């Protein structure tokens, strides 16, 4: 019995590890090649479409000025650009600050959500923004983002040169990476996410996930979909799947770069991640039910991946840890010997080397400080994820049992 359980957990865990190993290979490959077509593509950048940049903002007074300063510097023909700050129910000076920019720059507009849309979260705010915009291409930024000046240009470049791309997503970097230990860990995590999950999946399967910020999408698609799903906590994952269902793919184009702020305290991090985890669990459960009726098999694969991450892999880790602990006290007849110890060490080395590759891709990030942070990360930050999934599963269960309403928690910003 113990052996069967152990084998099960082993298969679950190593399926994930092997998959990530495979993704890392693709990610590295994508890094080596993604710039190759840029010079060719630039030649097609003549008849540019009109772009609407949507920035949903709810009580973002702390960061909004910096965000709009970056927006003001966007290198895109101003007659074909509108930046719309969607002020959603802010009780602080968000609207006031934004208005100063709107007064100064003709292509920056501030809109106020109407009662039908107000205070319901990001999806709802975006849907309102959609009604106020006129661009053929919609670009979304979170209110804390400071995109590099040519990021919008690169996003549009991806869309213009890839007729099958429904959306193009860029890369995001962390502004406060060296503020606290937590932001340092998050910084490493985001770099890994982009070069393994995003770049890897794109290179192997032409799949990327809309990360909620720094992406461009064709207006026609959003309209066909009837806007953003307001019930979804992770509106980006949800949108991703629906875009694929329409027959489009989403391109990962890391030439478009934005910088964003990450939570500096554990409490804020915890709330944000709980929302993500619950959001993704919601998506998995929503689409698992209609898994085999989905037209795009590629995305089925991606949903299974999520299912693995939040359920099977998670369960495998819990099981494996439990067996390990029980085995310390009672002999449960585990028949596997030294090889599992070797595998454990290899799993650790795999983690470390994968992170090293992604860090070296971001030139300056592979430094002594991060070298030790990575080693520490495996035993601390990575393990926090287990607690997080347990907690979010508990919340999700509670919600289903007591029929509670989802509440969108907005991430707190820092000066």
């Amino acid at each position: 019995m113990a052996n069967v359980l152990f084998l099960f957990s082993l298969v679950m865990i190593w399926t994930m590890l092997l998959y990530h190993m495979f993704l890392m290979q693709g990610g590295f490959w994508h890094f080596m090649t993604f710039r190759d077509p840029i010079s060719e593509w630039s030649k097609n950048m003549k008849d540019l479409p009109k772009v609407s940049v949507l920035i949903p903002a709810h009580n973002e007074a702390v960061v909004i000025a910096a965000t709009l300063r970056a927006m003001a510097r966007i290198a895109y023909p101003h007659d074909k650009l509108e930046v719309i700050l969607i002020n959603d129910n802010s009780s602080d000076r968000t609207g006031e600050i934004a208005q100063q920019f709107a007064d100064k720059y003709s292509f920056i507009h501030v809109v106020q959500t109407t009662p039908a849309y107000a205070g319901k979260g990001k999806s709802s705010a975006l849907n309102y923004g959609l009604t106020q915009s006129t661009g053929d291409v919609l670009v979304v930024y979170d209110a804390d983002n400071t995109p590099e000046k040519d990021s919008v240009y690169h996003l549009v470049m991806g869309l213009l040169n890839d007729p099958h791309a429904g959306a193009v997503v860029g890369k995001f970097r962390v502004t406060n990476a060296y503020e606290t230990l937590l932001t340092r860990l998050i910084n490493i995590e985001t770099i890994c996410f982009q070069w393994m999950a995003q770049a890897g999946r794109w290179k192997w399967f032409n799949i990327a996930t809309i990360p909620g910020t720094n992406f461009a999408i064709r207006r026609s698609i959003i309209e066909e979909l009837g806007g953003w799903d307001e019930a979804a906590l992770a509106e980006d994952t949800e949108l991703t799947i629906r875009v694929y269902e329409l027959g489009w793919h989403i391109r990962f184009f890391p030439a478009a770069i934005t910088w964003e702020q990450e939570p500096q305290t554990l409490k804020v991090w915890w709330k944000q991640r709980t929302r993500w985890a619950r959001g993704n669990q919601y998506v998995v459960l929503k689409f698992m039910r209609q898994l085999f009726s989905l037209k795009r098999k590629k995305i089925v694969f991606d949903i299974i991946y999520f299912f693995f991450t939040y359920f099977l892999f998670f369960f495998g880790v819990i099981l494996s840890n439990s067996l390990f602990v029980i085995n310390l006290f009672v002999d449960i007849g585990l028949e596997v010997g030294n090889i599992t110890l070797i595998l454990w060490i290899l799993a650790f080395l795999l983690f470390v080397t994968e992170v090293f590759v992604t860090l070296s891709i971001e030139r300056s990030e592979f430094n002594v400080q991060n070298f030790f942070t990575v080693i520490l990360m495996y035993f601390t930050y990575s393990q926090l994820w287990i607690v997080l999934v347990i907690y979010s599963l508990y919340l999700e269960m509670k919600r289903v049992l007591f029929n509670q309403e989802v509440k969108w928690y907005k991430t707190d910003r820092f000066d």
Partner: protein
Amino acid sequence: MRYKVLIVLFALLCFPHVTHANSPNVTIVYSSTSNDVPPEVHKLDALVSRFSENIHILRDTEVTETSFKKTSHLFYFGLNPATIPSSTRKQINESNASLYGIGFNANQLKAFEKIDAIRMQGVSTFYQERTDTNLTFELADTVFSVNNQAATVHARIAQRDKEHSTIIQLNEHFYSGIYNLLNRSSLLLADSLYDFFEVEAKQEHLGYIRLEDVNPSTDSKLLEETGNYLLDRNIPVLLAVVPVYVDPDSGQNVHFTDRPELLDVMKSLENRGASVISHGYTHQYRSSETGEGFEFWDVENNQPILTPSDEEPILLKPKEAFSNTKEYNAYLSEVLDGETSYIQSKLTKSIHELVSLGLHPLGFEAPHYTMSHSGYQLTANYFSNVFGQIQWSNTEWEVMGVTPYVSKPSLLHGMTLYPETIGYVRTDLPRPVDEMRRARDELMLVRESMIGGFYHPYIGMEHLADLIDMMESTPNFQWLDLRDQNEWVRTEDVSIQTSNGTMSLQDNRSPVWSQLKLNMPNSFLEKSLWALAIITFTAVLMFLAYTLYLRTQRKKRLFKERG
């Protein structure tokens, strides 16, 4: 003159060959209803093999005018009542060879015209003239009594307070009324062969004790304790070793490399004088467990093993399914190819694995003593001896037994049989050593008889001292030391040879490869895990290489990005 000396010297050098030619030329003629050589005849051949290296077996219908041309000793063995073909009868009667008649029909021959044989049932008490011993065997027998005043009597039977002769000698001719040679009473016939061949027996009883079924699941403490006890008593103990422990229920497949402490015990016992013999490779077939299962006989289908363990066994078709013998033989040789490769692989693996572990197998014992006759023929390419019992029948595994003394049965194609004659310590019996003592006492009927038995090390010390005391109380008892014999074990790549107390090993395998093979993981699970580890390790190396590459490109990239 010098040439003459050289010629004499040359002749002396040739002497060993001459002795071979001088060994009695024996022909065994038998009458039987069976088409194949009956097990009893194989047994007779084995008994005779102690005295002759030239034995020819003929069915009574196969005798020709030249059959006995060189024969010095002729046996006639009647297994059933029959009329001996007249031409055969004539050939036997006209032969100058000493004749030994056994069982039925002997009175049809001139030499035994007047023996007046009467068949008697329920005979269990026998008397041996030579040793003046009365013995009652456990099981009753059917034998012929003979009534001939002129004869010298070697053995008698007692029934209803009356004595009758059963083995007699008339001049140089012998007759034995004991004809169930698979029964215990055949001991008396075996002993009479010394007189028939006029051989002076050595005043010695060789003996051995095997520690049985030593395999990777064996308790190392108990093996150490029992092994060292025997060695302390200067007994060259034998270890019957099975290199792999298989338990299909749990999917376990354990090798000695998984039990280093047990291997150390075995090596230290061998260093102190114990001899290792190969007891198969897994001591099981298909879904059976090591020690329980048969390895060289498909007991479920009672036939030789024709397919590897993981394949469905082919059922051997009976002879009747074929229109003629030629077709049957063609079929047989085809399916027996499966047996050949199976046995070759098992024996090679067993020897190679034992040698890779640092042990020196010096002999062979078939698991549960079972093996087909073609199997023995193959085994003779690998081993110079066999311990235990022999399967006399090629179709029924249960028909097995031993000769009471060391022999070289034709069935074994040159291998020496070191017979297991007193059985083993059975813990289900109240006084197991007494049972073995009884067998030993019966063996005293036979000159040079071997006292061979085994002991399961898992029993611990409980009966061991008693057993050894009993064995050593045998008159003129000597322990057999395999290292003092000229034994050899070999495969294409490995050979082990003993002589005068030393062992020499030649191993032509690549040492790296054989060690690698030895330490290869066994189960599918373990193999997969190792494969996983290798894949992961490769990935780790690749990622390290990428990292280093990206670092070397750092400055170049800086300029590129700025540009």
